Structures are given as C-alpha cells and as structure tokens.
C-alpha cells in the first residue's frame, strides 16, 4: 500500500506544545514535550508502550492537566482544565473505546449531548438530514442512520465516532488507535477518512502502533520515547527503519537486528 503523502501545506500551526511535563507520583510520564500540529496535516504520534502517547493525548484533551509547560492553540496560550473545555476550544478526541451507545441509532449517537431541537422537542428530521450530509462529505459507507449502532461493523463504528467528533467544528482531531482491531478493508476505510479530515483543513493527530498505517497516511511522525521527544520525521523523506530506530531508541535493537539478519540470510542464500 503506497500512498504518496502530500507535502503539508504550511498554513501555520494550530496547536503548539512547549515544554509540557507530567508526573504521576515518582514517575515522570512526560518531560519537556514540544509538539507542533499544523492545519491540513496528519501528525502521527508513535512510541513504544509506556512512551507517554496516551498521557500526552489525555493532557491535550483536558483529561489530565500538565504540571509544566505551555499550550498555544490558535495563537493564544490556553489552559485546558477539562475535556469539555478542550471541546469548546476545538480539540476533539476519539478515544479507543469509541464510547457509542449501542442501543441508540446513528443519528442519536452523532448528536448525543447536543441534540438539535425545535422549541423543546427533538428535531429528528433536521438531525437525520445533516447526519446524511456529514456522512456523505466523509464518503462514509453507512447503509442507514436509523439502525442501532450495535449492528455496524468496527470500521463503521469508528466512522460514526469520528463523524461525531466533527460536529463540534473542531480544528484539531485526535484519533487514538483508530485502526486497532480493524480488518484490512475497514482499516483502509478509516485511513481514507483520515485523509478526508486533512482535506477539510483539520489538524489530525493520529496515534498508532501500526507503522504501515502511519507511513500510509501521515505527513509527519513525532516519536516519543520514555516520555521525551525523540525526533520528528517527514514521512516523505524517512524510511520506516529510521522511525522504528527512534521508537526503540537505538539502531541496534531487536527489530533492526532481525531485519538485518534476514537481509544477510537472503543475500547468502542467493
């Protein structure tokens, strides 16, 4: 799967973190993290388990508050104290467990907590109409918006969760492992969706363990290692190998050793 990444249009930084640190007791989960996210760009956030990806995402999303450092959003320095504040600013997060109500239909899930009303009564017609509009814009393949979310596939559920995050007109969308537990076709569907978010001029932060997905869709890759920045790479100018080296922290690691060994073996075999 080779998608040539379009070079990010340099329309300026939407979200910038400077020196963000977060401690949990004796553990320094994040130390001096710098991160820039630009509009119309997909920034992949990668790192090994325990590198601090989730902590960083939750800090940006307002679930945690940073101990140190500044966050500049849209040119203003902001402090985000709660997820609701982050959403109001325009930072939407789709967490891994999606948080959909299986018993409600797609429309109800999309508009959960911000239902459109006529007077005091729910405006089902307008909600359904604009649901279709939104899903069509995202070229989402959802057969009906009046079926319970329980009957959707994993990729469709992810689509609904991402579409819901867009209803608040965000500027930054963070996706936490959107392709984990998805099949090949559904993964491709979600990656297409990520590209469509970029086309809409959104800044997308994509957390993923899957290097193939990252290389396929991201413009830049920010690597975290043990709670610190460990390099930012332009995907178009970088090999997977180098990113893995940055993730694991060395060039002579288990992964590259295996790869090197196989190349050697193949070379000697031929």
């Amino acid at each position, binding site marked *: 799967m080779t998608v040539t990444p379009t070079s990010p249009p340099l329309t300026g930084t939407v979200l910038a973190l400077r020196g963000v640190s977060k401690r949990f007791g004796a553990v320094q989960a994040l130390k001096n993290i710098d991160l820039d996210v630009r509009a119309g760009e997909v920034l992949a956030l990668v790192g090994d388990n325990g590198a601090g990806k989730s902590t960083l995402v939750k800090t940006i999303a307002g679930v945690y508050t940073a101990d140190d450092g500044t966050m500049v959003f849209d040119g203003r320095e902001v402090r985000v104290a709660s997820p609701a504040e982050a959403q109001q600013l325009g930072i939407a997060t789709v967490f891994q467990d999606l948080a959909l109500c299986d018993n409600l239909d797609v429309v109800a899930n999309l508009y959960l*907590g911000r239902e459109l009303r006529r007077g005091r009564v729910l405006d089902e017609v307008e909600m359904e109409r604009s649901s279709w509009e939104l899903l069509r814009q995202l070229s989402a393949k959802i057969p009906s918006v009046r079926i319970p979310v329980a009957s959707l596939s994993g990729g469709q559920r992810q689509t609904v969760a991402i579409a819901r995050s867009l209803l608040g007109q965000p500027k930054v969308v963070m996706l936490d492992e959107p392709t984990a537990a998805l099949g090949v076709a559904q993964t491709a569907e979600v990656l297409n969706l990520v590209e469509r978010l970029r086309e809409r001029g959104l800044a997308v932060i994509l957390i993923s363990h899957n290097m193939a997905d990252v290389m396929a869709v991201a413009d830049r890759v920010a690597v975290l290692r043990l709670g610190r920045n460990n390099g930012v790479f332009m995907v178009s100018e970088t090999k997977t190998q180098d990113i893995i080296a940055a993730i694991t922290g060395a060039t002579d690691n288990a992964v590259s050793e295996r790869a090197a060994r196989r190349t050697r073996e193949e070379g000697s075999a031929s």
Partner: protein
Amino acid sequence: MTTPVDGSKVPVQDTVEDPAQEAALPADLQDERLIASHGVSGAIAAFTARLRSGDLGSVPVVVGLVIIWAVFQIANSNFLSSRNLVNLTLQTTSVGVIALGIVLVLLLGEIDLSVGSVSGLSAAIFGVTFVNKGWPLAVSILASVAVGLVIGLFYGALYNRFGVPSFVITLAGLLGFLGLQLWVLGKEGSLNLPFDSAIVKFATQSFLSPAVAYGLVVVTVALYIASRLRARGQRLAAGLSAAPNSIIGLKAVALALVLAVPVAVLNGDRGVSSMFVLLLAMVVATDFAIRKTRWGRSVMAVGGNVEAARRAGINVRMIYLSVFAACSTFAAVGGLLAASRLVAVNQSSGGNDTNLNAIAAAVIGGTSLFGGRGSAYSALLGALVIMSISNGLALLSLDSSVRFMVTAAVLLIAVTIDSLSRRSRQAHGRA
C-alpha cells in the same frame, strides 16, 4: 468474483443498480445495501423482519393479553362483559401509574424495589393529613406527592454521592418507608376516606360521558394524523424518505379502532373512567418525554452506555436524580389513586403485592431489565395483563394462592422472552 472460501455469508442484497434511480432516491435510501421496501406490503415485510431479528417491542405482551382474555372469557363468559372491563380499568390504573415510574428506572438499567412502600406512605400521609388533621384536599394531595418526590431525590442523591447500587438503596427504602407508613398511621392503623370528597368521587364515580369519550377518540386520531402528515412534509422537504399516505391512513384507522372499540364496550356499562384516562394521559406524556425530548434521549443513552453518555457531556447525575425522583413521584400518585379507589388507608396500603405487581407489569410490558430499551406503553400493557389475571381468577373464585402462581409464571415467561430476544437482537446486530 469467486465464492468466498472462508464461508462468510454474503449479505442478501436487494440492490438498486440503476444510478439514475439512485439519484432520485431520498437521502436515507441511497445505499445499495439497503433492502428496499415500498408501500404497505413493504411495511409489513419490514415489520416481520424486525420481529424475526428479536426486536419484539410490545408484540409479545399484546399476544399474551389476547390469550389471557380468551382463556378467561372461555372459563367465565362474564369476563369480557362491559361491567367487568370497567372494573378492570379501575383496578389497572394505580398499578399502571406505579409501573410507569418503574419503566423509567428500568430504562436506566436500575431498579426501585420500594415503590409499594412509597405508595403506601403517600396514601398514609394523605389520609392522616386530610382526614385527621383536616387539611384542605389540594394541600394534602400536594404533601403526599411531595413526599414521593423527596424520597426519589434522596435515592438519587445517595446513588450519585456514594454509588450504592439502587437495588440496595431501595431495598432499605422498602423496609424503612413501610415502617414510616405504620408510624404515620399510628395505633388504630386504619382510616376511611370520606365518600363525598372530590378525590374519592374522581376515583370511583367519575366516568366520561359517551360524547366526551368519542370526542377524545376523534381528537386523538386527528392529532395523530396531523402530526404524521407534518412529519411527512418535513421529511420530504429535507430530502428524506417518508411513509406514504396509505400507511399513515392505515395506521390512523388502526388507532381509531383500538380506541373506539374499547370505548364502545366500556360505554355499555358505566363508561370510560376518568382515572383511567388520567393513566392514559400520563403514559402518552411519558412516552413523549422519553422519545421526543433531550431528557428522554439522555435517559436512553445513560441506560445504554453510561460512560458514552458522560463523555457526550450529558449530566449523568441529573439524569439519575430526575429518574429516581420521577419514579417515586409516580409511586406516590399511584398510592393516592389506590387509596381513593378503595376509599380507605390502612397498614396494608401499598403492601401485599403492589410492589411486585408494578415491577412485573413494567417487565411483562416489554421494558428490558438490562436498560436502554423499553417504552412507556409497556407500563399500561403490563398492568392490564397483571390485573386481567387477578380479575379473571377472582371471577373464577380462585383465591390468591393461584393468582400468585399464575402471575409468577407470566412474569417468568416475560423475562425469558426479554432475555431470548436480547440474544436474538445481538445475533442480528440490533442489541
């Protein structure tokens, strides 16, 4: 394209191949995977497909009600007489009102075991303040309903603050408020309400005149048609599919029959009881609140997935608080109505099987014990089932031993249907 080797099922498709036709379709019917259904036959096909997948709604309870009525009618030809059916409506009302509150807590996936005690306490407070203390009727009614409200708020606060399971909170309430009821009633423990008081007259002697009853039927059907046509117009204007006029017409005729036939039968005796009309109004209002308001949508969401609801910015605590409060308030109103119909308040008001009848009614009516699924109408239908059994067995001069066992069997069947249909819904992706 070869057949899939992994044995995975290819979904049965009724594809719309012609792209020109697709463009003409409403926005919600363009996906080619949708099984097309048109007109009346399509609506029937969609309905049967929904039933097969386990989305039974109120079908089992309606079928059950028909069977129960048929059996009792065969056993005793007086069962479906106008006189007995009027009695049935009177008996159903208080249980139906209490069950309405149970439906709300069940939608959240919670339970209130204390509704019987709360209804008894409310009746006791009404009796003591109205009869013994001589408070004005309205003040007494307000006081006893307010007690229900306060109890519900107390439950909600306990639940929100300490996270104690509602099962335990309300089990304590069941005991505690029974005790409070006995304490309020004092030594003699029994009060007769004055026959000439407005509330007793309302509960025992107030019936709609035939003209008013039929007038209500006509108004209801007209409102139904108007709202359907309006919704149809809005949907078409928004480029969505809408039910054709033929379906709306058929549904309106069905509604008219469902309303007019019972009215005709009841008019053969005393008529439609005002108290029963109050129950119907409460059911319709609750149904509206559940399906058409933001509050109701939030209740369904909390019942389906609390965490998702919380993250969507729903004030989950407020939802719990309001639902527990509504449940206890309905219980208090139900207790008042029961006391007024029996023209007495005593130590067994709200006792015996009131509690379990109300809970059983909600479940038999088709509201799921698992939360997030159900309807206000299940309170009405379930209460009719429960009271039909009780009424029919009394007519056959069978005592309460048989009644308890039969009600238990019906409840067991209802819960089993709920569990089975839930499994089927999961298999069909409708859970």
